[in-house]
């Protein structure tokens, strides 16, 4: 995707790194590059002073730095009140060049919105090897799409190549690259050996046009999924956030039909769903940045977890509509709900969720 950067900051210790060399070589020459002392990196990640939209401005400031904390962590959405999918998060970047109106990063990264990529990302491979060595017999699904889109910056970092190369030779690790782009060029040049799955967040055209700024159109995402499937990758789809706008039920069914016309159900590794959920802070931030987006003004009410969610009968009815459509497709596609309690899972799928380690293994293996 095209990057619209105002500035690049390179931490001194990263100046000669392979990642910095790749990025600076791929960027337009007119983007100013500043080298900053390691101790000043934090300042470069902070909101630009005086910017009318500090979060939006942060997306146009790229910071290449060392990550000083672990790369690998359990999914932060996991909680005792929700059924968990056993997902592990590998943070190789922070923030995203796309600008979805509902994105939780608007709140989560409000204090350090600059788009950061970590030059020492290869250190994460040691963490992954330690994880695998300490839990023999288990299979883990590890994704890079939590604080950033997994592929949105791949045209300038090519990190996907390093990741695929690493995961292709690890028997009990599966990489999930989660994206809303169609940036698959690097992927098509690699052999994942069955250990990489690429997942797309899918939304109907109405949501894409209203809320998913700079993302690839849904049909382009589906076409990209077909292309990587043909190249030996596994594919999965996240209907998250699921937005209950007027006409949503019909639009989501049309979207699923479009998907199943291109990707046979038997070749879908899994499907996840998660209703739009926003803390009051995120809701305020999102509405103030996108005051005209009707998708942010759904019939949402404050739920017991402190988040605004579509009122329960409507939300569950929409989940069930999607689940039924996939069920009718004739293949048992593993499915789960994100950030929903076990009772909702049971109500939608007719069975209680399995333990995180088991579902994690099931989703990782495909």
């Amino acid at each position, binding site marked *: 995707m095209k990057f619209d950067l105002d500035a690049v900051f390179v931490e001194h210790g990263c100046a000669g790194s392979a990642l910095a060399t790749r990025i600076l070589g791929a960027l337009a020459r007119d983007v100013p590059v500043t080298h900053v002392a390691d101790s000043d990196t934090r300042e470069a990640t902070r909101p630009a002073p005086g910017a009318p939209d500090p979060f939006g401005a942060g997306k146009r400031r790229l910071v290449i730095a060392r990550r000083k904390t672990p790369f690998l962590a359990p999914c932060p959405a996991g909680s005792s009140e929700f059924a968990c999918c056993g997902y592990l998060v590998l943070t190789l970047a922070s923030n995203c060049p796309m600008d979805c109106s509902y994105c939780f990063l608007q709140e989560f990264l409000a204090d350090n919105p600059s788009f950061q990529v970590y030059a020492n990302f290869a250190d994460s491979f040691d963490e992954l090897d330690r994880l695998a060595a300490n839990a023999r017999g288990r299979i883990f699904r590890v994704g890079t799409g939590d604080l950033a889109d997994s592929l949105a910056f791949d045209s300038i970092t090519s990190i996907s190549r390093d990741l695929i190369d690493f995961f292709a030779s690890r028997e009990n690790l599966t990489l999930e690259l989660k994206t809303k782009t169609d940036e698959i060029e690097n992927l098509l040049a690699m052999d994942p050996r069955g250990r990489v799955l690429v997942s797309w967040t899918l939304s109907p055209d109405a949501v894409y046009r209203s809320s998913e700024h700079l993302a690839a159109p849904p049909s382009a995402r589906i076409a990209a999924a077909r292309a990587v499937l043909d190249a030996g990758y596994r594919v999965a789809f996240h209907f998250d956030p699921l937005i209950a706008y007027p006409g949503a039920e019909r639009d989501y069914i049309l979207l699923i039909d479009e998907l199943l016309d291109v990707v046979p159900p038997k070749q879908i590794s899994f499907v996840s769903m998660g209703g739009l959920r926003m803390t009051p802070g995120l809701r305020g931030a999102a509405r103030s940045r996108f005051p005209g*987006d009707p998708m942010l*003004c759904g019939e949402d009410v404050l739920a*017991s977890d402190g988040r605004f969610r579509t*009122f*329960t009968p*409507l*939300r*569950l009815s929409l989940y069930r509509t999607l689940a039924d459509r996939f069920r009718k497709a004739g293949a048992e596609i593993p499915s789960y709900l994100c950030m929903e309690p076990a*009772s909702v899972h049971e*109500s939608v799928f007719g069975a209680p969720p399995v333990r995180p380690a088991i579902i994690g293994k099931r989703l990782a293996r495909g």
Partner: protein
Amino acid sequence: MNADEIDAQIRMLAAERRLPPSHLARWLAMDAASRAALLDIARVIRLRTGQLMTALDTLEEVAVREHVTVAAIFDRPEIRRIAGGPGSAPSRASALLEALRTLRYPLLKRMQEQIRSEVAALKLPRGISIVLPKELASDEFTVSLRVRSAAELAHLLEALDRSRPGLARIIEMLAGKK
């Protein structure tokens, strides 16, 4: 009144009501017809500060949801009836906010009414109460029994048992099953 005079009046009312500056700024950012329409109704039914803030928030959300102006919302018969209808200013203010909330949450309101009708149709005896989840934010509802004797308990449990199909329907409705 021209636009400047309307804005001056809005500022004066906002000062009287101690409306937060962010709300005043949003009011003044509306199109001219919408600014004037809200001023008019705020005066006629004497919206208090909290009511004015709620009205502003709800109106903005309805306008975004339906791609209409605030003036167009005030022009709807159900809103005009409240603005120009009988009753005290406070009761009309409450009715206005309730009507706006129905526009903002149409499916929620309809579902709440349907479930309340189901509950009423159970004709449960005194001593049994059903509390629905606030704003249907959950799929869980509470049934409570208030008894003083074993006989009373037996009577209420029998009544509950007879209501089992109706209660099951309410459970299904809360779970979004059509």
